[in-house]
């Protein structure tokens, strides 16, 4: 093991898993939309970004300025995350309605979808940058919006000489819960079955009476909900929301989705955690300036040598 890895192995492993959990949650949205529509939803990173803003809006709405503790804390976290998930989910559904559905109706070529997606992404992120005319206020502005500290960072237990904080546990546990919920939904419910059917063969599914439009809306909704959860967690963990905050996590999450096998829900989870790990461990041997280059390098390598990813492409859990 190289020297650089030996010294920082465990701390970076835990940090990597935490960040990887965030990537995984965003990646689930990419992978599900891709599975059903074969579309890279570039605007998904903006759905995540809106989740980070929704979190800070909720904190302001509740008038929180200092950390809370006890039974209040989990309730508060839920009271922040659930509306964030709803707002992000609504954004994703609106995106499908306004931008993608007209193209689907027309049977437009794939290039048109990609251009629409990238346009929607730029539009949404700049919506949080500009000062809105007439009313004169901004949704976000150029500078990052700070989260008031809700969770006081404490060490819960020590593993391999590294203190694991309550925030890290929150992120990883929430991600696992969300993933289990999604997995059950896709595998065990009627709507999930319809989703899998559309992913496998949209025409056959339509002939069997599966309401394609409703399935697609459900897919966007689920992806948006996951991104909203990821966004508010990201905000609670890193303490910031900003109009361009979605770009880097978004492209990392897409990398994670491809790494795990796009369209594959379990693959997104695996890819997210793996990417978080590799990236963080890679940084110990180079510097943080190269962190993003490592992720892009992985993306290019995976696409070139194993474009179906680790788990293979196909919507299954």
């Amino acid at each position, binding site marked *: 093991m190289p020297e650089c890895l030996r010294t920082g192995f465990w701390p970076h492993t835990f940090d990597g898993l935490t960040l990887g959990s965030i990537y995984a949650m965003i990646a689930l949205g990419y992978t599900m939309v891709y599975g*059903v*529509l*074969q*579309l*890279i939803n570039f605007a998904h990173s903006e759905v995540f970004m809106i989740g980070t803003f929704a979190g800070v809006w909720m904190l302001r709405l509740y008038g929180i300025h200092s950390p809370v503790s006890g039974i209040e804390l989990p309730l508060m976290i839920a009271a922040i995350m659930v509306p964030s998930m709803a707002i992000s989910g609504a954004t994703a559904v609106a995106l499908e309605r*306004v*931008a993608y559905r*007209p*193209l*689907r109706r*027309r*049977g*437009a*070529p*794939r*290039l*048109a*979808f*990609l*251009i*629409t997606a*990238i*346009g*929607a*992404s*730029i*539009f*949404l992120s*700049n*919506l949080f*940058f*500009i*000062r809105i005319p007439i009313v004169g206020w901004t949704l976000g502005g150029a500078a990052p919006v700070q989260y008031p500290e809700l969770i006081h960072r404490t060490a819960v237990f020590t593993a391999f000489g590294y203190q694991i904080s309550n925030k890290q546990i929150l992120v990883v546990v929430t991600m696992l819960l969300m993933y289990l919920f999604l997995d059950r939904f896709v595998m065990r419910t009627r709507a999930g079955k319809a989703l899998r059917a*559309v992913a496998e063969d*949209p*025409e056959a599914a*339509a002939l069997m009476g599966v309401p*394609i439009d409703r399935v*697609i809306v459900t897919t966007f909704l689920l992806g948006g909900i996951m991104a909203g959860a990821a966004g508010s967690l990201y905000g609670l963990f890193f303490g910031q929301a900003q109009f361009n905050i979605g*770009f880097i996590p978004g*492209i990392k999450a*897409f990398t994670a989705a*491809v790494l795990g096998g796009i369209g594959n829900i379990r693959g997104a989870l695996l890819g997210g955690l793996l990417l978080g790990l590799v990236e963080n461990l890679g940084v110990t041997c180079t510097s943080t*300036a*190269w962190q*993003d*280059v490592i992720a*892009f*390098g992985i*993306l*290019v390598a995976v*696409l*070139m040598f194993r*474009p179906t990813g680790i788990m293979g492409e196909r919507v299954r859990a």
Partner: protein
Amino acid sequence: MRERLARFQATKKGRTTVAVVIAIVVLLLPHGFDDHWRAVFVDALAFSLLALGLNVVVGFAGLLDLGYIAFFAIGNYAFAIPTAGSYSKGLFLQGGLHLPPVPHWHDWMWLLLLGAIVAAMVAGIILGAPTLRLRGDYLAIVTLGFGEMVRIVARNLDSITIGSRGITAIPHPQIPYAPGHRYLFGLAPVGYYYVMLLLVLLMVGVITRVNDSRVGRAWHAIREDELAAASMGVPTVRMKLLAFAIGASTAGAAGMLTAARVNYVSPDSFTLLQSILVLAAVVLGGMGSIRGSILGASAIIIIPEYIRSRSPSFQDYRFLIFGAILVIMMIFRPQGLIPSKRRAIELSGEVAMPGKGISDGPEAAAALGEVDDGTP
């Protein structure tokens, strides 16, 4: 009146008249404005060059390149690194390499322009060779990653590119036009305007010829159905690579001239948003349409600048509007302002299978096969 004008334009005489009028306006344009607006026009031409190049990739070959600005960046650096004064050159080049002092590198403008073109083309081939086998949507994200990587590398390679502080004091080029006489470009935009105009015209000529040739037909075939094209013997990867190389080298040329004009290069001017801006120009003008690319690029540079000169706060809204333009154009007018006839049929999608999620290559193309586009 409008009808008569249209009928006049359709005649050969009419077309010549229109061309002559446009030529005169374009040639005299710098003389009616101050240096600020001249610089804007040079930018518009540089941007037209970029849009023409990207149009080859997106419009002709149907490949979505989201990191296109990287080739522009490479063109910038290919001129800046060898020519900048030693004090603004990277430490590596000063101390590590011990480059002999070449006093008048910046005299060899045409050679350096060629160098920038070759550098960008090589980068395009290096990126394209392994990735052009990928599916279209994967290609989009890989090129996006490539664009970001070039920017991050330029920011981190302090010893060569001086990182985010950027390279300053890049010399303005000089063209020897007679023994002992040189045309010094200097800071004034006029000289650059005509060189850039020359390049745009050259590019239009080259692209038109290429697109009307066997290569252009191969691109059409690949765009419509890659599998069918390959099985008919079209060397798909090589043709796509050619599109990539043409696009990249065009951006390289624009980059070199831009670096020479503003005599400053910084990695922060090569963000994803810039790539999107070029894409917006192509989409706005009409994918696959050469006139459209120039119109789109000029509109995207000149109109915002005009509005900004009236209300300075407009700058903030630019990208919001361009994002919206991309979405709105794709929904309501995917063929662009000046549509290319053939692309209009494809992009409307009306010939594709109804009821299918995203129309896939084969089905859409099978339906397209029955549409006669009028070309022999």
